[in-house]
């Protein structure tokens, strides 16, 4: 039999297929905010990866006896008129005679690591819990989600502090604490998407083909639940970096001499007026990083939402 070949409806030129991923990336790169966020993020990752090449000094090495430095010395930048016979320290020297620029550069590693690992853990656990709750429903849903509600009932930061109090201070425990605090957010997002996706007809179609529940959940439903998860994850990384910095600022996160931005802020917080460069540069670093993730997250949200697809009007 031949009914009318509808192939004509598709322009033959576009033989290359457009997956949703490719479409999303294309839409993402069309947004200025997302481009800015992505650019900053890529630069940060490069900085973190090549920290030893970029940083002129070891981050924890004190320069007493090596160079003529003074405690909390102001930035010395040759281009801006700092005498050429002085060694250059573009972000100055801290209370322990260390090069602040090198510490800020190495701090990128810590912060990105904190952001990605905590949110990675939170996504892993949250997705699993949310997916089971949403797909199974009934008592499993009730038990899991009420537990999540309990976690959410605490102010997140206080809960993190409480968890660290139990586990003991230190960067690693701070990571666990932040991850735990973030789990309920991801569980909720995933549960909501699973609930709506499992009612879609393509899921029923897969079931009619004889697919098992695990196949349906992991191969059909979860991949389609990813977009909101990715958005929430990206924004979550920004939050996690802030939380980790805050915990370190309070002295219960990363411990000195780890080059962590929050710790750097915390240890020098009393010198804001006498040596502002010691808090200014780590602060700016935190701000830029958080901003990058937020811009990217917002961009991803717009790029993945088909309703916002139409914009831009050339006149």
């Amino acid at each position, binding site marked *: 039999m031949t*009914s*009318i*070949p*509808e192939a*004509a*409806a598709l*322009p033959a030129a576009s033989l290359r297929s457009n997956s949703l991923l490719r479409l999303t990336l294309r*839409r993402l790169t*069309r947004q200025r905010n997302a481009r800015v966020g992505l650019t900053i993020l890529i630069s940060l990752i490069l900085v973190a990866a090549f920290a030893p090449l970029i940083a002129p000094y070891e981050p924890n090495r004190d320069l007493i006896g090596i160079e003529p430095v003074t405690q909390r010395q102001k930035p010395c930048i040759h281009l801006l008129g700092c005498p050429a016979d002085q060694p250059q320290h573009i972000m100055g020297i801290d209370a322990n005679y260390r090069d602040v620029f090198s510490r800020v550069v190495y701090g990128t590693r810590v912060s990105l690591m904190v952001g990605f690992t905590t949110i990675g853990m939170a996504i892993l656990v949250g997705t699993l819990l949310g997916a089971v709750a949403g797909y199974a429903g009934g008592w499993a849903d009730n038990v899991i989600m009420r537990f999540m509600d309990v976690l959410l009932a605490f102010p997140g930061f206080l809960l993190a502090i409480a968890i660290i109090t139990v586990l003991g201070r230190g960067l690693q425990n701070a990571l666990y604490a932040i991850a735990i605090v973030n789990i309920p957010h991801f569980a909720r997002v995933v549960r909501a998407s699973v609930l709506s996706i499992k009612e879609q007809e393509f899921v029923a179609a897969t079931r009619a083909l004889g697919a098992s529940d695990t196949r349906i959940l992991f191969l059909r439903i979860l991949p389609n639940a990813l977009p909101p998860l990715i958005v929430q994850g990206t924004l979550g990384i920004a939050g996690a970096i802030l939380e980790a910095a805050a915990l370190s600022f309070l002295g219960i996160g990363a411990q000195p001499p780890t080059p962590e931005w929050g710790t750097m802020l915390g240890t020098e917080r009393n010198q804001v007026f006498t040596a502002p460069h010691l808090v200014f540069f780590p602060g700016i670093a935190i701000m830029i990083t958080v901003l990058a993730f937020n811009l990217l997250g917002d961009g991803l949200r717009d790029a993945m939402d088909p309703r916002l*697809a*139409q*914009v*831009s*009007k*050339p*006149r």
Partner: protein
Amino acid sequence: MAIRKRKPNGSAPILEVRNLTTYFYTEDGVVKAVDGVDFFVRHGEVLGLVGESGCGKSITSLSILRLIDRPGEIVAGEVVFEGDDLLKKPMADMVDIRGDRISMIFQQPKSSLNPVFTIGDQIVEVFEIHEQADKEAAWEKAVGLLRLVGIADPESKAHTYPHQLSGGQAQRVMIAMAMALQPELLIADEPTTALDVTIQAQILDLIRELNEATGTAVILITHDLGLIAEMADRVAVMYAGRIVEEVEVETLFKQALHPYTQGLIDSIPVLGAVKERLNTIPGGVPNLIDLPPGCRFAPRCRAREEYGLSICTEVEPSLAEAKPGHKVRCWLYEDHSGHDAPLKPREAKARKKDRP
């Protein structure tokens, strides 16, 4: 339902749309949703605007009321309503015209009503906006309107919220709101598509009664040729952003001229007339961003092949009168001496032997 009375043919148009052009500027390109549309509506008549999804019929109606939002824009044309070009009016004047002189009902009555107000309040609001009526008199009028559109027990129904209504009732309420100020023109955009057939019959009856009783002209937008046959006096057929045929309803179903209209009529299954296969129109609707050169229907047109016309894919035909009162946009009916295509009898007899 009784025999339909025909309205006089000679009355002057209440609305004349000329060269209406609405484009949407999207990331992927310019979507020519409405591209040079011409038609008119006479006083008191029901004009059917028929076409498949994406042909631009709804955008046409929204353009008449200038309800087009970014990224869409009305780029050209005139919408002459009672002598005034609506497209030249300041927006403030449009607000007064909408709902008062031209009103509109939509496909999804439930989402067209505000869920947090009672339906009585929503009808009263219409009076408050346009007439500064006092609240009590307006409420009385609202109840009267609900009774008019066939809502049982209107006094208490006026106090209910939209979610308490069925789809059919909600559409009746929408019609009550639309008719509240006795508009001269009612635009009904797929008013019954979301409703069941038995409810659809009720709503159609209501629209027809109101049309006959108040003389309000109606533009009925639909994809359902059955609705057109039952409701419309005259029909404009849209395809890919253009009107391709415009004629009185009897003539359209007896002797459609445009190959697209013919194909459309042939492709619907008709109750009580079983065929082994239905006729189809090959291919799909063209992409409105990247339209074919020449006639927009040419790539799917069987008649073009039968008659061996080559001009169709090169030059677009104009919407011209092929017979008195019967306009069609097709080269088959154009006496076009500059081209050596075999030109066709003005009747489209050849059509029916399409498929055995």
